[in-house]
């Protein structure tokens, strides 16, 4: 029989949480940079740029994140002839994934700014970058915060998929502990509870921010 599930085993699970968080934060930062570029190109006047970024988003939102992980993992080895470890491959895959989602969220925020704001800025003879920087983006940023926080929950949950290619984060740690203790009825609910503790406050925060912004904008709340 395997070991029993005690404090040491629980600590092993806890020690895996920083990896889940590091992967989520890394993907959020990398994907954030990528997302800004995509959002701007998606709203840009030049048509080929819009097509390119639309294709990117369709590709990454239309395929499973697990497949993206496999393609990046094996693709790096095959296309560039470099053998990378699990961590850089996983980080790259989740960066590309979150770039697509954040880009789409932020495009929506930019396009939610009424047209007259652009026109007024243009009447004040601001250049295009100035219109964007001083008039549009400050307003769009405010709208974009609740869905971005909501996406962070989705991202933390998705990083569990990295366990499948053997990257040791919370879910993988749970698998390892199940294999040594043979107590899936204890380990997996604890893993689920730990994810819940990470995600639930963020979900509540996203809801609260959303209500506050709706109140601020005077939107009649239907949804």
């Amino acid at each position, binding site marked *: 029989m395997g070991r029993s599930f005690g404090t040491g085993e629980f600590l092993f699970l806890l020690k895996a949480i920083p990896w889940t968080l590091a992967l989520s934060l890394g993907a959020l930062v990398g994907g954030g940079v990528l997302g800004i570029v995509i959002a701007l190109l998606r709203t840009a006047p030049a048509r080929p740029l819009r097509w390119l970024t639309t294709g990117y988003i*369709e*590709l990454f939102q*239309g*395929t*499973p*994140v*697990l*497949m*993206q992980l*496999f*393609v990046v993992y*094996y*693709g790096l*080895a*095959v*296309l*560039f*002839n470099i053998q990378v470890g699990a961590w850089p491959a996983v980080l790259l895959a989740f960066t590309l994934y979150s770039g697509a989602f954040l880009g789409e969220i932020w495009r929506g925020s930019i396009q939610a700014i009424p047209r007259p704001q652009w026109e007024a800025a243009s009447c004040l003879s601001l250049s295009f970058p100035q219109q964007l920087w001083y008039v549009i983006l400050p307003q769009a940023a405010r709208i974009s915060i609740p869905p971005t926080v909501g996406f962070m*929950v989705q991202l933390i*949950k*998705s990083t*569990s*998929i990295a*366990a*499948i290619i053997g990257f040791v984060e919370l*879910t993988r740690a*749970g*698998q390892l502990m*199940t294999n040594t203790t043979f*107590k*899936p*009825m204890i380990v*997996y*609910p604890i*893993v*689920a509870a730990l*994810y*819940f503790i990470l*995600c*639930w406050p963020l*979900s509540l925060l996203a809801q609260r921010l959303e209500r506050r912004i709706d109140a601020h904008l005077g939107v009649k709340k*239907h*949804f």
Partner: protein
Amino acid sequence: MNYVFQFNVVWEHFPELLEGAWLTIQLSAAAMALGLCLAILCAYGQSAGPRSVRWLIAGYVALIRNTPFLVQIFIFYFSLPVIGIRLSANSAALLAMTVNLGAYAAEIVRAGIEAIPPGQVEAARALGLKRLQIFRFIIIFPALKTVYPALASQFILLMLASSVVSTISAVELTAITNSLQSTTFRSFEFYFVATGLYLAMALGFRAGLSALYWVAFQRGRPA
């Protein structure tokens, strides 16, 4: 780049990939139908049930939405047998997908119900409609119509997430791809083609769901 792509191996095994894709489609379609029923039930409970039922449903929705799908699958497949509930890989996958979608869809349907103007319900009551009739004709039907786009994207996200059930040896597209690439050593080619198949299925489901919208809500109605 000195790697030689060999896609002909993939084409030799293409029928097997299609078989896997077919199971993915069946699982997803079944989970969509069952999950939507569960969601409507939850929405009814939340709008008409006693306080304890409302809390129970809110707890279920929060729990599922804040834990990863992968961990939920592990609980259904590995943890439940400990308390005597033994499910085959396919039924565990279907159950996990249904329970998962039910929570997300319940939240979406609830938003649709909140958007129904109270005057509609009062008018229906004044016309003497029964409680269930009101829920069916005045509340749920228009609510589903309002939130249909959000539901459809949730359905497609579920289809993509189903790739994760390969971890419990349900032989859908991802599982078949895994086993084929490990016997042929053509990892990149297989995952590349499988990703393409998922993209095609996502587009196919989107088209199918649009057609369903037309059949359910538009046909025979004045524009």
